[in-house]
């Protein structure tokens, strides 16, 4: 076994390379985020007061759905071309490879969503003082959501029609992240201190980053063991 750091870099580099080679896969969740956020004023009416009040909730719910959409085929392409089988056969623990896979996926989906969110906040008339909290809550929140969605993606990797099923499995588990995330932004918008919900979100992020790969590894083994 050679130096683990090199192994980690090669594994991470491969995941980033595969995603970067398919630009559209990175851009699609961002466009989804943009378009769906634009739907709300069309549906609810453009009045700034109304939109400003709902902006934190809208931004967080749409970001959540974007993460869900981006996570659907997370393991499927590796499952179809046989590379996932090699990962299962590898002496490198499946916990580590799963962790690398989801982190790389978050870097190219959750993080860009977070960086795009201030633009949409303005579009939804959200007061600017809420933007720092929005960035912080989405950065931590998308991390939590990506790891939860990855568990669902691993459970449904072997199934042909995973999409709708994936949302059924993971949306209930998104509830705490949504509650703390949008609350943090709402408080910041009202000028109140939002460190409590952000701290809770941070704690959840640490927990899921450490624990979710165990469930992902178990789920990937199940889908291959038939």
């Amino acid at each position, binding site marked *: 076994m050679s130096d683990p750091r090199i192994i980690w870099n090669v594994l991470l580099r491969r995941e980033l390379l595969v995603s970067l080679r398919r630009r559209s896969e990175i851009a699609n969740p961002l466009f989804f985020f943009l378009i769906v956020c634009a739907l709300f004023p069309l549906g609810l009416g453009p009045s700034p007061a109304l939109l400003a009040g709902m902006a934190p909730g809208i931004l967080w719910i749409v970001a959540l759905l974007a993460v869900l959409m981006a996570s659907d085929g997370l393991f499927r392409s590796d499952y179809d071309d046989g590379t996932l089988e090699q990962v299962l056969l590898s002496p490198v623990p499946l916990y580590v490879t799963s962790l690398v896979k989801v982190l790389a996926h978050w870097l190219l989906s959750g993080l860009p969503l977070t960086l795009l969110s201030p633009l949409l906040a303005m579009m939804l008339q959200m007061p600017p003082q809420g933007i720092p909290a929005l960035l912080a809550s989405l950065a931590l929140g998308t991390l939590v959501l990506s790891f939860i969605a990855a568990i669902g993606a691993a459970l449904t990797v072997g199934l042909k029609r995973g999409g709708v099923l994936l949302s059924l*499995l993971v949306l209930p*588990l998104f509830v705490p992240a949504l*509650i*703390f995330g949008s*609350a943090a932004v709402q408080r910041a918008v009202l000028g109140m201190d939002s460190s409590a919900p952000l701290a809770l979100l941070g704690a959840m992020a640490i927990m899921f980053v450490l624990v979710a790969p165990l469930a992902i590894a*178990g789920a990937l083994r199940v*889908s291959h063991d038939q």
Partner: protein
Amino acid sequence: MWAWFHKWSSPRWFYQLSGTLLPWLAVISLAALIVGVAWGLMFVPPDYKQGNSFRIIYIHVPAAAVAMAGYLLMATAGAISLIWRIKLADMVLKCAAPIGAALTFLALVTGAIWGKPTWGTWWVWDARITSVLVLFFLYIGIIALYEAFDNKEAAGRASAILALVGAVNIPIIYWSVEWWYSLHQPASISFTGESSIHPQMLRPLLLTITGFYCFFGWVLLLKVRNEILHRERSTRWVRDLILSR
């Protein structure tokens, strides 16, 4: 110790054991339910604040409590089937899911009906009812995942993992919903406040809760026994059992 554990997990041994347990569970659950409901409906005076609609508590609270316990039982059975590959635990997981989902549905329906006379709306975004709603979604997720697999053994193991992930998240979900509820609604009206009901009126509740727990056990055993017969159909003891019927 291992022999005992192994014996306990053999479907045949469990089939015989459950055979003796079934009548007791059935009798206790029916008795407890009938007496508890009659007592709660007819003999207990109405609540001074909510009037007679509070009587729904005698079925709403047990349904929610047993539904939650059912999920934790499912997660435990899932863990056992994943770690020790015991078929019986996999069957318990598969059979408990629909019962739990039905009880969660009951808790939601009775909660909604209770909300109408008390707060004028069919759906109250109360902390406990919202948590039960999320629990209902968790159950639906388990059942949907189980049905999605053709290979039933993989289905059992995948559902076991989801049940464990769900069970770990339930405290977080329940606590975050409580936090969310206190954020938007100072606890003026809420189911959680029913402890304001006179203790003397809560006595029938103990009976109906016992009744619901035994009822859950009764239906679970019935379903698991069917599952055992199905999965062990090519064994000798099932053949003798069938032909001797």
